[in-house]
C-alpha cells in the first residue's frame, strides 16, 4: 500500500470528507511524527507502535572502494517499535 492508496481507503470510509481534506489530514499526521522526532521527543500510538530517535555515535569508516578512512559524524536515526497489539495481530496464526 502506498500513501495515495491509504488516502483513497480512508476517504472511501469517510464520505463526509473531501479527498483533499483526507490528504491534508494524512500529511498532518506524518509531518507531526517527523516534527516530534526532530525535537528529540518520542511519539506513541498505543497498540500500533512508537517512533523514537536513536543516536549513532561518530565513527571512523572506510571507503569500501579506495580503503580511505573517513570520519562519520554522530547521527540521529528514527526507530519504530511495534506495539504489543499489532505484534500479536501479526503473529496470531
Amino acid at each position: 500500500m502506498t500513501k495515495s492508496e491509504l488516502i483513497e481507503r480512508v476517504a472511501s470510509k469517510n464520505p463526509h470528507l473531501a479527498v483533499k481534506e483526507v490528504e491534508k489530514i494524512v500529511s498532518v499526521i506524518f509531518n507531526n511524527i517527523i516534527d516530534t522526532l526532530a525535537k528529540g521527543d518520542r511519539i506513541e500510538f498505543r497498540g500500533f507502535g512508537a517512533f523514537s530517535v536513536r543516536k549513532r555515535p561518530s565513527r571512523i569508516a572506510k571507503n569500501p572502494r579506495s580503503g580511505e578512512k573517513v570520519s562519520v559524524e554522530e547521527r540521529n536515526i528514527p526507530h519504530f517499535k511495534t506495539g504489543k497489539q499489532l505484534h500479536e495481530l501479526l503473529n496470531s496464526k
Partner: protein
Amino acid sequence: MKTVTRADVADVICKEVGLSRKDASDILDNVLDEIVQELVSGNDVKLSSFGTLSLRDKKPRVGRNPKTGVEAEISERRVISFKPSQTMRKIINA
C-alpha cells in the same frame, strides 16, 4: 524528552484541519487501522517522504535470558522493520 500521544496528534489535526476533536481522533484511528490491516494481510506499507514499514519473517533461534543466562528458544515470528525516508533522515539530523 517528552512522549507525544494519540490525543496530542488528534489536537494538531483538529487545529490544522478544523475538524472537531472527535472527528480528528476518529480519522487518526482510521489511518492507523488501514496501515494495520495492510500489514496483517501480509503487505508492506510505503509512505513517500516518510518511510516504509516492511514485514520480515524471523526463524526460530536459541536465545538467552540476559538476566539469568538461561537458554530459551525464541519462536518463529513476524516483525516489522521501519526504513525512514531520506527526507525524514535529513530533517531529523538538521
